[in-house]
């Protein structure tokens, strides 16, 4: 059986399927596990490879990647610009285009919205592997409407594989360049978020696994991911779900769909919301419970993008393994191991139980 060009998130074959790349494969898994993931489909790595082959660009792509590994930055930039221009102009295989059109029409039908707004985002084969964080290296386009725009942005995602940053990103000199790997493009219904953000199933600062740390902003979560807004921050105890800390940052601008420009941009936060916490306690608890379930389901610490819609529904937008602490042994909290009695006796003698922080 040939690998499909399009695979829906709720297809039984989607969960963790490599042809959906890391991001979308994980979302397929989340969908299968019953988490509230917005509906969508992935244009698979097979579709990407067929496109490059069909356009006769596969060989040139490999040559470019090899060259980029050695060249100086100005040369890489020039090569990158020339190749992505070619790639964006190349025709799509007829079968692939029909499959994308059909799937988008199906999404319109399912949502009941004509020209349903979608997010178009790349989902690389390598990006979400534990141990390799590619956050920010790939492209995401929000509020894309109509199949023509969808097709254009799919191509832009593919072209993104050959951007300067990806071509030169080499955290581990021995590993193949990430641009060598396949790429899936996900097309997913937009959540018009009242509040959105990210959360971690451990404290990203200390590695403490008994905490869930939530960062959220009014509006879409792009501001948290890109770092251009300071999010409000909440720390929740993973065992008891007590909200241990709330750090509210007043916010006067938010990412929302802007009718006047017909695009997502920074717009004012309604005055009555600016000083308020973008999350009520009820949602903080709900998100923390969700994070704990996802971590349990996936068996390791995760970071999770989420959105709360205006109607209060909570959606999972992305999950990926946490990559910093998973690779490193957290500091043992105690000094030399001894019996409980000896710990207590030492405590009375003025010796703290804590391991000295060097």
């Amino acid at each position, binding site marked *: 059986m040939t690998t499909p060009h399009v695979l829906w998130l709720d297809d039984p074959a989607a969960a963790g399927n490599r042809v959906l790349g890391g991001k979308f494969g994980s979302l397929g898994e989340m969908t299968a596990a019953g988490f509230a993931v917005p509906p969508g489909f992935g244009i698979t790595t097979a579709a990407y490879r067929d496109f490059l082959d069909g356009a006769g660009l596969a060989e040139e792509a490999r040559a470019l990647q090899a060259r980029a590994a050695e060249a100086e930055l100005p040369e890489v930039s020039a090569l990158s610009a020339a190749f992505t221009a070619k790639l964006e102009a190349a025709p799509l295989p007829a079968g692939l285009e029909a499959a994308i059109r059909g799937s988008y029409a199906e999404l319109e039908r399912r949502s009941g919205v004509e020209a349903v707004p979608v997010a178009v985002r790349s989902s690389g084969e390598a990006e979400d592997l534990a141990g390799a964080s590619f956050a920010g290296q790939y492209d995401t386009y929000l509020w894309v409407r109509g199949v023509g725009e969808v097709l254009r942005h799919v191509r832009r995602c593919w072209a993104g594989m050959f951007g300067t940053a990806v071509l030169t990103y080499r955290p581990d000199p021995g590993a193949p360049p990430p641009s060598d790997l396949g790429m899936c493009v996900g097309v997913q219904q937009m959540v018009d978020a009242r509040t959105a953000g990210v959360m971690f199933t451990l404290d990203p600062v200390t590695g403490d696994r008994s905490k869930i740390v939530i960062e959220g902003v009014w509006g879409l979560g792009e501001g948290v991911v890109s770092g251009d807004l300071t999010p409000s921050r909440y720390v929740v105890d993973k065992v008891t779900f007590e909200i241990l800390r709330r750090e509210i940052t007043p916010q006067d601008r938010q990412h929302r769909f802007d009718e006047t420009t017909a695009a997502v941009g920074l717009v004012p936060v309604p005055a009555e919301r600016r000083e308020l916490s973008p999350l009520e306690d009820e949602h903080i608890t709900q998100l923390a419970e969700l994070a704990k379930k996802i971590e349990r389901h996936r068996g390791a610490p995760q970071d999770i993008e989420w959105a709360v819609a205006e109607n209060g529904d909570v959606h999972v937008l992305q999950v990926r393994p946490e990559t910093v602490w998973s690779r490193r*042994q957290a500091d043992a909290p105690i000094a030399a191991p001894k019996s409980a009695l000896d*710990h207590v006796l030492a405590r009375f003698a003025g010796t703290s139980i804590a391991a*000295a922080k060097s």
Partner: protein
Amino acid sequence: MTATDSMIPAPAGFASPFDVQTPAGADGWQSLYPYYALLSDERRAQDEGKFWFFDGMHNPEPLFPFDTIMTENWWVAVSQMSTRVWPIPTALGIDHRIINGYLYISPNAVTDPEEIARRAVEFGKRAGHYYENWDEIYEQWVDKATDCISRLKAIRFAPLPDIEPESSVFGHRGVYSSYDLLTTYGELIHNLFEMGSYHFEMLNLGYGAYLTFREFCQQAFPGITDQTVASMVSGIDILLFRPDDEVRKLAQLAVDLGLTDAVLGSEDPDAVLRLIGEREGGARWLDAFEAAKDPWFWFSTGAGYTHTDRAWIDDLRLPFTALRGYVEALQRGEDIRRPLEAIVAERGRVTEEYRSLLPTDADRDAFDGLVELARKVFPFVENHNFYVEHWHHSLFWSKVRELGDVFVAAGFLADRDDIFYLHRNEIYSALYDLNIGWATGTEARGVTYWPPEVERRRRVRDALKRWSPPPALGTPPDVITEPLTVMLWGITQETVQEWLGAGDAASNELRGVAASPGKATGRARVITDPEQLHEIEQGDILVCRITAPSWAPVFARIGAAVSDVGGIMAHTAIVSREYGLPAVVGTGYATVTIRTGQLIEVDGSSGVVRILPEEAA
């Protein structure tokens, strides 16, 4: 204690205890208290260099002269354990001074490393023996405590007879009622000191084991709340829940016997008891009620350390308020039994989950050992309160009132409660005075001496009551390590900083220990006397110096609780957990900053209390 503690810069001092002014109308207050409890010029250099904090947790009010028996007891009983009995390597005793009638205390630390090492050797042997044989020693402790209580119960005071009974004569006793009065008084006082000594036999060690477990959790899971740590080790069948459980059972019995209309028929307990007595099946309920009362209604409405902390048995309104509430809940079809199995299961889940989140096997081993030890010591830590402060001390106060009647009969006092204006050593003199009058037939001097003196003392104490004691005086230490200071009073380096900062600016915000999570807004009800508890209206926010577990019935009516004093092991913490109300304790100044009727917001998760502007109402 930990590296971080010592990095906090030592704050500038508080006011010198010698600069505290006597409030108007309280001149001569020193005469109410023993000489050794007062500041004195010849000890000025020593006393000014020490850090004195206000023990509002146990003694929110100016001390009655008699009630210093409790503070004087633990001045020795707590201190000797640390200094001489164990000895605790880093801590000596806790010193006391009475300033304007209020108790200020100051822990003494051991700082010389060689001295600490020497003490540590002894401590290891002695404390090790207690930890290793804990359950057996605790059993013996319960026997000693109940025996002490039964001897206290047997003590009787009666006015001296007009003529000595025949039995004294024909039994050839050779000693008479005057001698009995003196010796019985001696027994009463020594009985208190006996129980007072048992009180602290195991307590420091219990707290120490728990504190070590708590520090481990705070180190492994920074930010973990105190109530969560406590929930992993606290028992569910602890005696402090028993009085309330008994009321629940009586409510169920009232329903079963068809007595609900009688229970709900009046807010006056005596009227309810009369109504029930007239009903069929009423006798059975009254039997059950009498059985529950002793000992479970020897349940103080305060910390138990002062005679003004009346017990349920003295004032049945509190348990009857709870009884009505439970009967109404049963009528609505609610299950009022505590969900014990669910609580046990939750305790197991929470413990197991934290354990699984530890990074290494060595950490899990340490955690297991410390949980086990903390759970071993906790029954004593939680239950000693009932034996000592509630059962014994409530009974003790009732016996002192009985002696008050003897003085009333002899014309020394106008009211039995006036006895509390006499220091215990003065009572020994007064009893001898009374004996002289009885023996000689001359009117005792006390008849003319004590009534005006009691009136003077009452005026002085009332003047002291209007003074607000600052939370601390003197020079704070660089590091606070004394385990009881941290555990019982909740005083840490951060608290001291907070207190020092609080004096700087008029603020509408108070900070304290986050004792029970959640947020609530409501009208403040400032309670300075348990008598005022009956004024609390639905949804009020209780603002007090300290709460007591027996205030539980009002917890059903309030929206949140705020107290001036209290740490993680204060009596409040245990009951707050049970009632799930937002609470902030250890704010230092809530009762003087907040006024009844103000709109306030309590955030029990962050430990912040805000006075809200009226527009927000």
